[in-house]
């Protein structure tokens, strides 16, 4: 399995690979001896069209996921030893991690969507066959812009809500015990 590297489309290899042998085979088939069929076993017309993007998004997703697991493991260990609330370096690490889940889910989504290309339904419909013939590009552009605008506004509203919540700080204990009496 390649932990890190840069895919080279021309030579169909990965530059500067950081390799751990036999791990992929173990992850997929439960044994280190099985052969994992590579992309070179499939005809070119069934390859996803943006391989480097797929490669990076997949590795970002898995890398961040591993990092979350490790971080939570260490935090759980510290909590068990009673040191979590006093180790400032860990609290900094956790606090600075807040954007990472968003990046990880986006990368995961990209992996799923780019990875299944050129198929809409694997083996049945290709993406090119699934597009609406009667919906013009102008209509799609209009709705794309609409969604961009909609999500921009929603993100701004979200930022304001989150900012206000952070600024007002955590709830005091006696209020937290009766959350239904706390209204905004």
């Amino acid at each position: 399995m390649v932990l890190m590297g840069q895919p080279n489309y021309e030579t169909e290899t990965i530059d500067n690979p950081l390799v751990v042998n036999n791990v992929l085979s173990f992850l997929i088939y439960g044994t280190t001896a099985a052969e994992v069929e590579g992309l070179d076993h499939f005809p070119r017309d069934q390859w996803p069209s943006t391989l480097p993007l797929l490669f990076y998004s997949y590795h970002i997703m898995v890398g961040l996921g591993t990092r979350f697991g490790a971080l939570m493991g260490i935090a759980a260990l510290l909590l068990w030893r009673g040191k979590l609330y006093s180790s400032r370096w860990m609290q900094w690490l956790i606090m600075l991690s807040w954007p990472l889940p968003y990046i990880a889910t986006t990368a995961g989504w990209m992996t799923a969507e780019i990875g299944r290309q050129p198929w809409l339904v694997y083996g049945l419909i290709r993406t090119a066959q699934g597009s609406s013939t009667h919906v013009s590009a102008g209509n799609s552009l209009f709705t794309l812009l609409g969604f961009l605008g909609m999500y921009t506004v929603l993100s701004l509203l979200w930022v304001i809500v989150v900012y206000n919540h952070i600024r007002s700080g955590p709830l005091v204990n006696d209020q937290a015990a009766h959350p239904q009496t706390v209204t905004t």
Partner: protein
Amino acid sequence: MGTLWFWIVALMLTAYVVFDGFDLGVGIVYLFVARTETERAQTLRAIGPVWDGNEVWLLAAGGTLFFAFPLLYASAFSGFYLPLMMVLWLLILRGVSIELRGHYADPLWRTFFDGLFSFSSVLLTIFFGAAMGNVVRGVPIGADDYFFLPLWTNWQTGANPGILDWYTVLAGLIALSALSLHGTLYLALKTEGDLERRAGCIACHIWRATVVLTAAGIPATVLARPASLNNFKGNPIAFLAPLAVIAGLGMMRYTMAKGSHLLCFLCSCGYLISMLVGAATGLFPVLLPAVGIAGRDITIDRAISDPYTLRVGLIWWSVGISLALMYSVIVHRQFWGKVPTDTEGYGH
């Protein structure tokens, strides 16, 4: 099997109109009926626990269309692309304005979300009514079973209609008036004091508008698509639907005068159900009539899935719909009766 699924989809859309109809209606009259901050909070609490559950019926009806009548789903979702996206935007804005309102303390923000809530409710209702109008009137289905409708052309029905023409606009207005009546009655049922009185008072006026528009709508439907009458001619029992519409309107007036909000609301449900059953009867066995080229109607037989799909689907549909029904019953029982006025805000 096809007939069964036709009526299942009709039933689900009817459930959507009856359930989500009242919270859309509350949104339409929200700015006029609820004047003070307390009243607005009270109004939102009346629909707060149920509005999102009610929208399940729309999604479920869409899902059912997708697997029972794939041809209709593909054709209609492509042909109505632009208006459907707008409906989606309005649904998002409406949900956001209900949920975010309580998170902003500033009165200016609250007014903004109030306006957005009402605006999106009004437009959604008109869109849904116009959508129904389009389905009843028919669309220019081409030889490949697809079509694309511009938002408007010359405002005439006929071979080259738009999404909006005189008939679909009328259908939108009927929906606007019928659902705002439905919502006002629900509000009168769920609230007390000034709010209840004001809702009851406004309901009287909207009732009159609904009677006039309904009276215009039935002959207009025959004008827009004369074939709507075929099932009624062959089957006199089908005339029960328009009779029930008239009876529902009459009973609403009677129960309103007697001051029984619950009965009046139930009559409004009956009115909506018989309107939709009437429309479905007029369509059957066509799902989406064609205008322009004859014989291109998307019928049950042309659009229906494979028998195996339908058999498996019936099992899972029953399971899913039982869960949705259970949830509806539980949540409506839980929040039965008047909204309490003593607590502040719409709860989170």
